[in-house]
């Protein structure tokens, strides 16, 4: 199967601190890959290095076979991104932000359809900064999907969403996945990871400590529930005991 995202031996340090060390990620086309870890574990840094918005120290990154920094213009016609923090102009409305985003691409999707799907159609005229946290979050997912991407990066996909909205977002992404969309996401919700991700990587202080499926993560741990297993992998005390 064709590989959509290929990351090999990615390393990035800030001074003497290793933010990301030796990350290897390979995502096949049409699959969903989850990047997990506590706050500050290096998930966002990893995504930014993959996207080329941060320079990394060593390793190689290919998205759809292209180098994101050197082939930016061609690549980002086919890739959508939702950053963890939302970035928009003061006083801009939903419609204006969608319009500008749509104008950047050669073959974009109709954003009104996407806004309907994500329950934001009645907010077209609203200023973005008057949206609730959950509505903003959904709007930025819409922006990431406007290019009609083959690959989408979603950093903290459903943070701030209520349960209903989270389910709706999952359903939407599952549909897109069925149509062949490749997704790389980070999340703090283990139910979401279980529901969506084909493969995961757990990061701890910038170092990958587990690669595999959710099922494998459970069976390699002494627990039966994924959330317990995840906590077991990332447990601070555990690591100190090991190093003693």
């Amino acid at each position, binding site marked *: 199967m064709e590989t959509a995202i290929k990351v090999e031996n990615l390393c990035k340090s800030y001074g003497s601190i290793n933010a990301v060390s030796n990350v290897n990620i390979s995502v096949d086309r049409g699959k969903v890959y989850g990047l997990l870890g506590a706050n500050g574990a290096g998930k966002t840094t990893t995504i930014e290095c993959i*996207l*080329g*918005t941060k320079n990394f120290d060593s390793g190689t990154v290919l998205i759809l076979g292209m180098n994101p920094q050197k082939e*930016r*213009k*061609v690549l*980002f*016609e086919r*890739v959508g*991104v939702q*950053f963890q*923090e939302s*970035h*928009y*102009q*003061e*006083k*801009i409305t939903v419609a*204006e932000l969608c*319009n*500008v*985003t*749509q*104008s*950047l*691409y*050669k073959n974009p999707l109709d954003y009104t359809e996407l806004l309907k799907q994500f329950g934001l159609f009645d907010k077209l005229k609203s200023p973005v900064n008057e949206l609730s946290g959950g509505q903003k979050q959904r709007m930025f997912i819409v922006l990431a999907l406007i*290019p009609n991407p083959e690959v989408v990066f979603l950093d903290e996909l459903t943070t701030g969403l209520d349960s209903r909205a989270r389910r709706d977002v999952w359903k939407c992404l599952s549909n897109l996945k069925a149509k062949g969309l490749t997704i790389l996401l980070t999340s703090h919700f283990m139910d979401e990871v279980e529901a969506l991700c084909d493969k995961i990587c757990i990061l701890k202080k910038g170092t990958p400590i587990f690669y595999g499926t959710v099922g494998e993560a459970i069976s390699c741990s002494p627990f039966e529930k994924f959330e317990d297993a995840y906590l077991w992998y990332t447990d601070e005390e555990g690591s100190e005991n090991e190093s003693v």
Partner: protein
Amino acid sequence: MKAFNTMFKTELKLAIRGMDMVIFAIALPVIVMVILGVIYGNQPAFEGASYSFLTQSFGAVVTIAISASGMMGLPLVVADYRNKKILKRFKVTPVSPMLILFVQVIVNMLMSIVSLLLVFAVGALLFDLRLGDNWFAFLGAYFLVLLSIYSIGMMVGAVSPNIKTSNLLCSILYFPMLIFSGATLPYEVMPTVLQKISDILPLTQGIKLLKATSLGLPSGDILFSLIIMILIAGFCACISIKFFRWE
């Protein structure tokens, strides 16, 4: 082109919604023109002058908008968009973040030009403002001054590490220039000491250039001002390109 058009429309709407430029670049120069008109009417600039005091002031008043858009509007937006990481979002699209900066230059330029036309219309209709014949030279001077003031603004936007520094530097540049370079308070009514200080400010040289071209004065006297303007534009543009950071 589609991206440019949509962004231009949106950024223009945002600038108008923001009101700052509408007040400082469009309303303020018109108000100053009206005040000068009411005070000086069609008095000659000095005894025996062939042009009025108001006509002489025209070249100065039009720089209020250039200063507001170039030294407040432009650098603050650049710093703000970098701070809000809007430039970063453009980095993961097919369009260069350079485009949004270019759009901002055009939006601000448009504000200045609208202001220029309004100030001229108010002067001509209400206070008998009459310019010299050499429109071409005046417009050339106008765009040169615009270029050098904008390049100062871009330099401030480029070297400021954050929006606070940018704000501070802009205020330090903008307000003294607005008052002491003759843009609002006419150079001709300043005491000689103040005129000497005023001569140091780059905008003062720009205003001399605009006055000479709008009044059709002999061009020999303004060579110095012309060179200063070109040097500033070149120097500041180089600094801004060299030190510009996306984040």
